[in-house]
């Protein structure tokens, strides 16, 4: 509407005027529904993807981990349900000046260089081995499998009242040399201090 006011009435008789008019009409018709779709409540995997990325912002890695590599790799192990969502959400983002990168790993050994590793529920039975493999590394382990924090995992997604929340095992994280921001802990629904290791 404002444009109409800006343009002189005679302007619409020219070729350029007509092109602009048509562009405006096309944009309104096609783009508006898309925008509306984006604003509707996000899916669980979308929320989880975003949280994975956000965790990176509230965790401090030891210096040896930060200095290695120029990327900030976020990895997924097992049959995750993200599909391409993770890539879509994270694409183009960076943390502490390092470009975020999504890696799918098949073995725990491949995840050593990852900053954050999402362990799918499908790997529930191999969790002990996975966590053992990552011992002495500074990888933040995240999963949505039950009992994850209790079993030595660091952050576990919990769905509560249709909302995605998370629990933290602070001892596991500290053992890996990671410092979790108080801000993060504040948001967590449960922060465990002591847990069985390697169990």
């Amino acid at each position, binding site marked *: 509407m404002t444009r109409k006011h800006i343009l002189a009435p005679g302007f619409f008789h020219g070729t350029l005027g007509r092109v602009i008019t048509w562009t405006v009409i096309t944009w309104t018709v096609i783009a508006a529904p898309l925008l509306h779709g984006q*604003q509707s409540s996000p899916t669980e995997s979308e*929320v989880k993807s975003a*949280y994975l990325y*956000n965790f990176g*912002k*509230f965790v401090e890695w030891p210096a040896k981990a930060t200095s290695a590599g120029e990327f900030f790799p976020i990895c997924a192990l097992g049959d995750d349900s993200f599909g391409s969502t993770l890539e879509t959400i994270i694409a183009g983002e960076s*943390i*502490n000046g390092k470009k975020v990168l999504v890696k799918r790993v098949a073995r725990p050994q491949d995840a050593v260089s990852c900053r954050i590793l999402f362990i799918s529920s499908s790997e529930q039975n191999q969790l002990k081995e996975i966590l053992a493999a990552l011992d002495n590394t500074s990888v933040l382990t995240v999963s949505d499998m039950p009992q994850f924090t209790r079993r030595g995992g660091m952050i576990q997604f919990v769905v509560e009242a249709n*909302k*995605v*929340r*998370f629990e933290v095992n602070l001892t596991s994280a500290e053992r890996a040399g990671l410092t979790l*921001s108080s*801000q*993060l802990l*504040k*948001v967590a629904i449960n922060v465990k201090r002591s847990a069985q290791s390697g169990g």
Partner: protein
Amino acid sequence: MADLTMFWSRDSSITKRLTRMNMLVSGAALLISCAAFVTYDLVSFREAMVHNLSIQAQIAGSNSVSALLFDDPQTAVSTLSALKAAPNIVSAGIYTPESRPFAMYWRDGAGQSLALPPIPSGQMEAHWFKEDQLVLVRKIVFQGKPSGSVFIRSDLQEMSHRLKRYAGIAAMVLFASLIAALLVASVFQRAVAEPIVHLAELAGIVSRDKDYSVRATSTGNRDEPDILIHAFNEMLGQIQEREGALQQVHRELEQRVEARTAQLAAANKELELRNREVEHATKLKSKFLASMSHELRTPLNAIVGFSDLLAEGVPGELNPKQKRFVNHIKQGSAHLLQLINDILDLSKIEAGQLELHCEHFHMKDALPEVLSTIRPLAMAKNIQVEHMLEIDRPAYADRVRFKQILYNLLSNAVKFTPQDGRISIACAEDEDFVSISVTDTGIGIRAEDQTVVFEEFRQVEGGKDSTHEGTGLGLAITKRLVEQQGGKLSLVSELGKGSRFSFTLPAGAKTTTKTSATDAVSATAPHRAAAAEGRKPLVLIVDDEAPARELLASYLDPEYRTAMAESGAEAVRRAQQLQPDAITLDVLMPGSSGFETLAALRKNPETANIPIIVVSIVDQKQVGFALGAADYLIKPIRKSVLLETIRKHVPYQYDDDAAILLVDDDPKTLELLEETLRSAGYETQSVQSGKRALEVLSSKLVSAVLLDLLMPGMDGFEVIRHVRQDAALKQLPIFVMTGKSLTPEESDLLARETQALLLKNGSWQQQLVAEVERVIRGRKLARSAGQS
């Protein structure tokens, strides 16, 4: 404004003013500085407030980042609830990057979530004061990414508290300062205002008490008030000095005035004495004059009167020699009388005792009286006297004196004009004067003598052949008489050719046409025909001297009956007894004076209506008229004057048996009228002109007049006017007979003034006889009824 004017009201003293000025200045300074201070403080407080709120917003924002990122509003709410510690914060809110409200905090329980105000692009935060609140909005940026916004609202209570506190402090400071200023002012006042107040008080004392000995005390320090005090003291000293000098002068002046006053009083006393002496002398002189005139005139009166009677042959015919002697006596006594009169006149003029009785009169009316006395003199020398006096303007002067002036000039002219000469009298009118000139063909007067002739007792030497008799007073008196009446007498003359004397008199009003019929005819009036003896009017002559009484009686003899009284008392008695028609009264009589008698006669109702004519040597007309005299004649008098005067006052006695006067210019009409009236038994006399008619009327008694209106010369209207103006003829019946057609005015006049109007149209004769019968018989009846 009203307060301000009161504050600066002019009557307040300088100390009050100084104090007020002090208070005002310090109060104003304090107020301004307080205001500046408070303003500055408030501005910086506001800045600090914004800064604080911004920090709080930053803290709240950064503490809420994780809650925002992990979509945990509850955590955000608990974070925000930490703001409880800041009681000024009314509400706060966290908003998602999409500006949706995320978490809210309200100080006073729950409230409505407010829409996030927009932040201008490119800015981290924005704030504004709105409705007693400070509102601040701040973006939350985490790791370089906008993560949401914080919105905080704070009330301004702290600021208003602060403001109140400041106002209180300012008021206290102001109050304290003003008290301090008051104290300081009182100190200054003592230093500055006190000398001025002191000076003002002193000035008040000086102006109020006129005490110039007071002095102001010096302050000691050489400041302006001190200079003022010194100058003031110096000034007081000078004034004191001058005051002293002034008082000295004043004292001297007073002494001088006293001395002069005493001198003046002495001089006044002396003057008064002199005045009294002069008054006394004047009185003596007047008395002398009066007695002289009396003593001289009384014998002379007898000489003149009786020689006149002798000359007329009243006591019997004289032989030629006797006649000559009598004439010598007459001439000598006339000259003597003239001389006495002149001397008395002159003395009177010089004594300021000349009485003038001014009236309006026409020259031509007054002239004949003079001419009648001059003509015989002129005729004796065959001198022709001409006069041209045809002017309308009357003179306003003393008629008697006018005649005297004219007589003097004419007799002079006759005296100095040789045989067969000519004298002419001319008259002219000016703006305010009438002038009369008398020109003669006489010997004339030398130029060097022309002023001398007006001096007393000077006669010009006319030559060896001319021995002119005269008193040498005539012209001197004439000149003074003219001048006393406001006129001027002048002379033009050439030796050997003649002289012309001219004099002026004040002119009267133009419209005045007062002409007296008696004057017009009296000059020629001879004796009135004797009426029937029984009806002759009676005149009572009052005089103590027998010759005077006899003379008056002889003057009155043919026309009037006379009775005598020798004194005032007798006069009153006889007047009461006889009821005369008139009284002549002398003034100077032994016993009661004439004036007393006059008053007594006037007071008595039985004699009050009798006309009294004073005949005396004493010229006190004003007294006489004041006492009720009908007229006043001065001895010696001429017969004609006496008769004329008495006629004026004694009503005409109509003789019904006398003739009827017929006046008509047509002889045939006259003849017819004569026939008609004679056959009806009336006497008639016929005249053919108005003038003749008046002559007859003045000399003869008639019973009525039958008058024609249209006549050549004097017409009937004029005759009527003359007749009615003569007091003696007022009641004379007039019948008018005319063929003239009359205007309404003429008809009115005739109806008023005449007894009957007859028209000449055939049958007037019977009417005439009837009218005459009616009037004359009617009057006879009325008289007989009145007498019974």
